């Protein structure tokens, strides 16, 4: 199996889905000749031509709105937002139409589009290039919100998102884009959307994370074992919405001690929903209040102070030790 970065793995998914199905169209700003500012669409225009890899004018709402029309017509547009910080222009189109056309037409139409956007901090970028606003999308009924954490699941989830009959917001952790390589099979691979995964088995506490926070979370789990002899169960959400709580609940019932980790601001963040589900379904198994290790309720600072904002291994360990002492 070749070892790939997440950028290469996403590119592989796009390439294979485009080869299989001529209704898959890639569009966005700089996705063609330039191959995307992060090079996720690199080489696609050479392989599939300008008809299917479309450099658009600079207007996010139009990219999303046009994608909705294409999808209703029977195509499968995969549109790219250059950064999540610019994707809010599309929110009206996505909320008012992409998520509702199936409902509004009582099943006559559906909107099989994917909106890809790099999200999150850790790349020393300008303002508006580091946010983690997945809850904006996760709160919208009729929409799926997916965030992979590594090259292999990114490839498999993107293939699933493209094939999904409903609109999918696909956030790519830009801090992970080139951070490490993983073996990714050449042959097709998909992962079900709406399903979380246990990525480490443990009995002492549960760590729940997703996206770029999976790496520090797994590192923290290893350190907890090494230094404190504690075995953490670690769960990767993969899909933020609709949220699959079955593994979370099962794990919380087993360990009784849970921390949820995300870089989005704390209040009303994805962690709040996780905590609510655990309170509803595992309350009597909890040995300690569920901990949230998250970004703070501030605008993410410019990159010189970013490391204080983003949850890292020490903050996760700190939360874990408090949970274990409770």
């Amino acid at each position: 199996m070749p070892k790939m970065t997440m950028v290469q793995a996403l590119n592989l998914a796009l390439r294979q889905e485009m080869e299989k199905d001529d209704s898959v169209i890639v569009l966005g700003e700089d996705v063609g000749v330039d191959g995307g500012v992060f090079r996720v669409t690199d080489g696609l225009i050479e392989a599939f031509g300008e008809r299917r890899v479309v450099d658009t004018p600079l207007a996010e709402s139009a990219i999303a709105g046009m994608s909705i029309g294409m999808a209703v017509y029977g195509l499968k547009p995969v549109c790219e937002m250059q950064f999540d910080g610019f994707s809010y222009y599309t929110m009206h189109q996505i909320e008012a139409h992409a998520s509702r056309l199936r409902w509004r037409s009582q099943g006559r139409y559906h909107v099989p589009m994917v909106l890809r956007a790099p999200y999150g901090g850790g790349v020393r970028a300008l303002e508006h290039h580091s946010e983690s606003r997945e809850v904006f999308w996760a709160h919208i009924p009729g929409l799926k919100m997916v965030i992979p954490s590594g090259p292999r699941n990114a490839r498999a989830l993107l293939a699933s998102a493209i094939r999904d009959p409903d609109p999918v917001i696909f956030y790519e952790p830009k801090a992970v884009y080139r951070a490490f390589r993983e073996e990714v099979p050449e042959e097709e691979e998909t992962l079900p959307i709406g399903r979380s995964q246990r990525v480490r088995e443990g009995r002492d506490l549960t760590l729940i994370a997703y996206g770029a926070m999976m790496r520090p979370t797994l590192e923290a789990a290893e350190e907890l074992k090494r230094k404190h002899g504690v075995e953490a169960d670690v769960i990767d959400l993969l899909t933020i919405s609709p949220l699959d709580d079955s593994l979370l609940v099962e794990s919380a019932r087993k360990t009784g001690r849970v921390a949820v980790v995300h870089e989005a601001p704390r209040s009303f963040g994805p962690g709040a929903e996780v905590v609510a589900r655990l309170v509803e379904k595992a309350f009597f198994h909890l040995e300690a209040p569920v901990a949230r290790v998250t970004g703070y309720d501030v605008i993410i600072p410019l990159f010189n102070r970013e490391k204080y904002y983003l949850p890292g291994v020490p903050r996760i360990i700190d939360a874990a030790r408090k949970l274990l002492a409770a």
Partner: protein
Amino acid sequence: MPKTRIELPETIEHLSILNERGELDQALEPAIPDALLLKLHRTMLLARRFDERLLSLQRQGRIGTFPPISGQEAAHLGAAAVLRPSDWMVPAFREMAADIWRGRSLESIIIYNNGFNEGGRVPAERNDLPISVPVGSQILHAVGIAWGMKYRGKDDVALVFFGDGATSQGDFHEGLNFAGVFQVPAVFVCQNNQWAISIPRSKQTRSKTLAQKAIAYGIPGIQVDGNDILAVYAAAGEAVERARAGGGATLVECVTYRMAVHTTADDPKRYRTDAEVEEWRRKDPITRFQGYLMAKGLLSEDAVKAEEEAISAEIQAAVDRAEEEMKGLGDPLLMFEHAFAEMPADLKEQRADFIRFMAEAQKEEKHA
């Protein structure tokens, strides 16, 4: 480095074929078969009378808020009438005559406006989107549909409606720009009815016409008398033919007037005068078209009377059918449907909890 001038179109065409007195410019008269002319007339009249009936149903509390179309029949029907069934129509929310023309049943309009989602269902044989409430947002969908048509090598077109207020929205400008860049077979039909609720056309833009906005996007634009169905039909027809032939998009501005309220929750007396409304009443699109058809010998006073009676019966039958059908609607579980192709587990749980709650509430009601 001299200061030079860049040539741009300096004029916008304005098309009027039947003037306010119903007099015809014969040189411009479009060749429309008699049967089609009569069908257009009947649809305009049906839409007007149905609009009036909906208003009375609303006032009686038998349906909810809705946006009347009276006065704008020619502006949207004239455009929809040039479409083939395989073309796509992308409505805003004030195109009822066009909806009826494309095959939407009167019952579904009543059912929708009475707050039942079932009325929004688009039958499989019609390539039309459901109505779109957020002003101007649907323009982009037509561009995407038209992009798909071009990609698939079809000679169909996507025709989208919006109002004068929509031309202030970003989505309008982005849509026209994208359509120009991609040369897609889209037709943009603006029903300039002079009022976006209380904001007059003069406060939407300093531009002399709305049609001229096309110039900035490198596509043709034309202004027509929107109360003249022949002019609308001719201009939309030319735009559709150009689109089919690969000539790209066109903006058609139909100058018309909203004779009634914005929606039934609106009171126009707060922002416009009766005199202005009366002035536009003299330009009524149906009276004018009727005069033309009578002059042509296609229609008589008696025929109109007979038509009015038939329309009245048709509307009554539709109201009766809709009210009968609505007795069987209202299953609350429908609200959980059509969110996704497959219902996710957490939604299934919420649905199950709702069913449990309803059953228990019913039991308690029985005991009480």
